[in-house]
């Protein structure tokens, strides 16, 4: 443990109201501590700058998965294990379940939360591409009230996001699809478990005969933020699957993403694999595949 532990504080408010009051009182003084699976790594390494934490794990309002006709709503503290165990999610949002099953190992899946994954804002996180492709919405609460935004507008730059210091992410809302779609999720991390993605691809599409009627694509680890690839989607929408479509879509994706060389991989690899996965996704949509 490289941190000077006595300089850290963790408080556990009993209710959501109390928690929001603490956050409202001194903006930015307290930061939420959910499963702690991102925060503890930094603490251990002596690299956790912020000192005061608010334990939100015990707040019932942030737990649980709710299903209505139109939506599935996940409390921000929903764990990866809970995601995988949920029947409606397995049926209608298989990419989220797959992301959950490929996140960390069992211990992390029992403790890590979807809300933490979102607010930690790592461009390499594995559930954001699935959530972006499923058009998720985020609900925030604060002492002043609540607000809901589309997830794609949340990440504004590297570790920059649309959240105020007095807010908590309360829930993630997924619109339930009316029709059958095809889902394609692929995490590329060299080893099969406990991996940080080098590329993560999530795509969902609906065919109308031989045309792509609707498509949503998001990638991780190829930009400063988890990226919804709207240009690439536009290049595919209402088109037949053929070499020309593929070429246009690949050009769009190449222009849209901004992979880099870093400790884990190279720009070239990330770009090439992203294009390969796009092609594989699109080819599998073809009725003759």
């Amino acid at each position: 443990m490289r941190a000077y532990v006595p300089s850290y504080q963790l408080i556990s408010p009993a209710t959501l109201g109390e928690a929001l009051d603490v956050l409202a009182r001194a903006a930015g003084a307290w930061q939420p501590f959910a499963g702690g699976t991102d925060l503890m790594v930094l603490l251990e390494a002596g690299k956790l700058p912020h000192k005061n934490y608010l334990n939100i794990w015990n707040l019932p309002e942030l737990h649980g998965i709710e299903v209505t006709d139109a939506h599935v709503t996940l409390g921000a503290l929903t764990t990866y294990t809970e995601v995988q165990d949920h029947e409606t999610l397995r049926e209608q949002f298989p990419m989220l379940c797959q992301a959950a099953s490929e996140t960390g190992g069992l211990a992390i899946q029992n403790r890590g939360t979807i809300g933490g994954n979102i607010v930690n804002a790592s461009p390499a996180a594995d559930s954001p591409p699935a959530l972006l492709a499923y058009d998720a919405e985020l609900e925030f609460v604060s002492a002043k009230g609540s607000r809901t935004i589309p997830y794609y507008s949340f990440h504004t730059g590297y570790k920059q996001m649309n959240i105020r210091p007095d807010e908590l992410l309360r829930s993630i809302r997924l619109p339930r699809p009316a029709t059958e779609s095809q889902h394609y999720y692929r995490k590329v991390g060299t080893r099969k478990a406990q991996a940080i993605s080098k590329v993560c691809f999530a795509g969902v599409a609906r065919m109308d005969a031989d045309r792509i009627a609707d498509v949503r694509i998001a990638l991780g680890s190829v930009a400063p933020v988890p990226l919804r690839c709207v240009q690439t989607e536009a290049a595919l929408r209402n088109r037949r699957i053929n070499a020309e479509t593929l070429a246009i879509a690949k050009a769009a994706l190449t222009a849209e993403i901004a992979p880099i060389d870093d400790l884990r991989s190279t720009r070239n690899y990330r770009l090439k694999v992203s294009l390969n996965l796009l092609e594989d996704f699109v080819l599998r949509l073809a009725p003759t595949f």
Partner: protein
Amino acid sequence: MNLVGKPIPRKEGRKKVTGQALYVDDLSFPGMLHGVTVRSSVPRGRIKNISFDQPPATAGGSDRNIPWNEFTIVTAKDIRDLKLGENYVALILNDQPYLADEVVNHPEEAIVLLAHPDKYLLEEARRHVSIEYEELPAIFSLHDSLAQKEIIWGDDNVFKKFLVDKGNVDDVWAKADFIVEGEYETGAQEQLYIENNGAIALANPNDGVTVWGSMQCPYYVHKALIKLFGLPEEKIRVIQTETGGGFGGKEEYPSMIAGHAALLAWKSGLPVKMIYDRAEDMVATTKRHPSRTLHKTAVNKDGKLLAMEIDFVIDGGAYCTLSPVVLSRGTIHAAGPYFCPDVRIKSTAVATNLPPHGAFRGFGAPQSIFALERHLDKVAKTVGLTPEEFRRRNFIHEGETTATNQTIREKVDMDGLLNRAFELSDYHAKRERFARENGSDRPSRIRKGIGFASFMHGAGFTGSGEVYLQSVVGAEATPEGLIRILAASTEIGQGTNTIFAQIAADALGLGYDLFEVAQPDTAQVPNSGPTVASRTCMIVGKLVESAVVGLKQTLLGSGLLKDQYTQAEFQRACGDYIEKFGRLQSFSKYQPPPNILWDDEKYQGDAYGAFAWAVYVAEVSVDLLTYEAHVDDFVAVQEVGRVINPVLAAGQIEGGIAQAIGMTLYENVVWENGRMKNGQMTNYIMPTAADIPPIRVYFEENPYAYGPDGAKGIGELPMDGPAPAILNAIENATGESFNQIPLMPEKMMEDLVGQG
């Protein structure tokens, strides 16, 4: 009773799984301080100033000052001022200081030691020691070292060279039908034992120095501390605590951390504990030597090897440590289990400004065998033979000589091992099926391939090494008739305690539970040599056998025991003997088998008393979407003499193969200015169980006359074969020849599709 050959449960297994086993970090002493190391942040330079700072008043960092007067602080100067011994880690060349004095030669070199009772405050203090340097130019690759881009060690950057010359290769090239050349490289690898390095020391002028620690070789630490403190040997005591793995990483490094803890203990007068966290252990301690091998091979049109010229270079890092020995092993194994009339092997260990590389399972052999077994597939292709047929034509047989002119006197049947491995892996059918599938009009994006490697590994120290070691093992009976085995050979997870007890029990025809292996403690056990080099079972096991037989002979000689005895009679006789004579002990010293002749100058002769022989087959799939290779199936057939404990033996093979799969496809040390940049398990991608295929392990048993119950060495062998077998399989799958490990997906992509 016949315990040998049976899957007897581990001696210390229950304690380990119930958490009762005590590792060094589980121990605590009254008044104990914690110790940390402040390390160099530059690869090479002169130390200009060391200052002990305070956190800036306004920083968000610590909110308290650092009470420097409460800290015990040790630098190189203290070793002089306290009038201790020498500031070097005694090993081969004694070039590595315990604490850098004036100059540093690699990143993470120890410069200052700090101790304090509060380990959190200690970390805060470590961050506030500032060291100023005048930087000097540094080199980070064996290529730059060979080219003498900068001279950073001695006159020529060379720690050691060997030359093995059999016949005269120069006469052969002209008459060869084919000459095939190739270049092969391997990278560094981290041992990643579960338990990080750690030690506790008590040290003062009256009692001398006592160290507890996680280690493979208590007497190496003993020797090093004698020099560091300038004390007589009886004033130094080294005790091995339960050890969570070593793989070579706890062969030489524990001398360093033990010395550091002892220096802090000496200066403070209090016990000091030093435990590295994973990040420190990964960046600061030893790794496998990176290597480069050049091959030039002459073959005739019948596919017979005529000459092999091999140039093998390893990167030793900034100090010599064990590099000469690693180089030696890599050299001797470089020509493999083949007969070739003319062989020249030139090998060199060079210095770079990386942290010193050190012992790691296989000790240079995995590097040179990787090169050879990749190269032979290339040679086979050039000659127009299958990899299999080419090797069959050149396998070594009884009566033929190795590269060092050692005549093989044991029965060796490489063809038989190959046949069995191919049958078990369904090699031929798969080779055919994969060729068909990969060559079809619409091949799958997953390409399958199968490949193999054939190899050998010598057990024990090289040549006359075992004679120099003069290992001794003792056995001692208690009045109740229990027997303690006294040896410095350590249990590091591989099963030493269990096999020693099995061998001893069978030697006397008594029950397993009567035998206990004493905790290695230099004040209590004789020096049975280091726990390295696949020697513990074959060499030390044999000494265990003769030591316990010595007890029996003493009892028989005293008339207190009859030739035919029951267990109860034996135990009673022990009690009677001890009552009459005080104690019952027996010691046994190493005797070399007959006809082992080794010329250390010319590197010719009997390199090893015995070799283990093996053929490994790997089946892989390569995903052309992600350029990731996965090993799908693995068959390992080996002849290791008699198997003492089939579960432990299979465990050794499985573990070694898993570790070698890591070295081949996953584990890439990313260097930046000589520092390991990915020193966390997150970014250093060691494979998990999910990446490891079923590993199918088979033993052929051919008892070795001079091993205990016929056993030979086993621990390093499984590290040798997987890398070339896997890359041979990947060539089979993709048609592309890769000659570097680790083969990461990024590299595979570059070669398969170009730079993008």
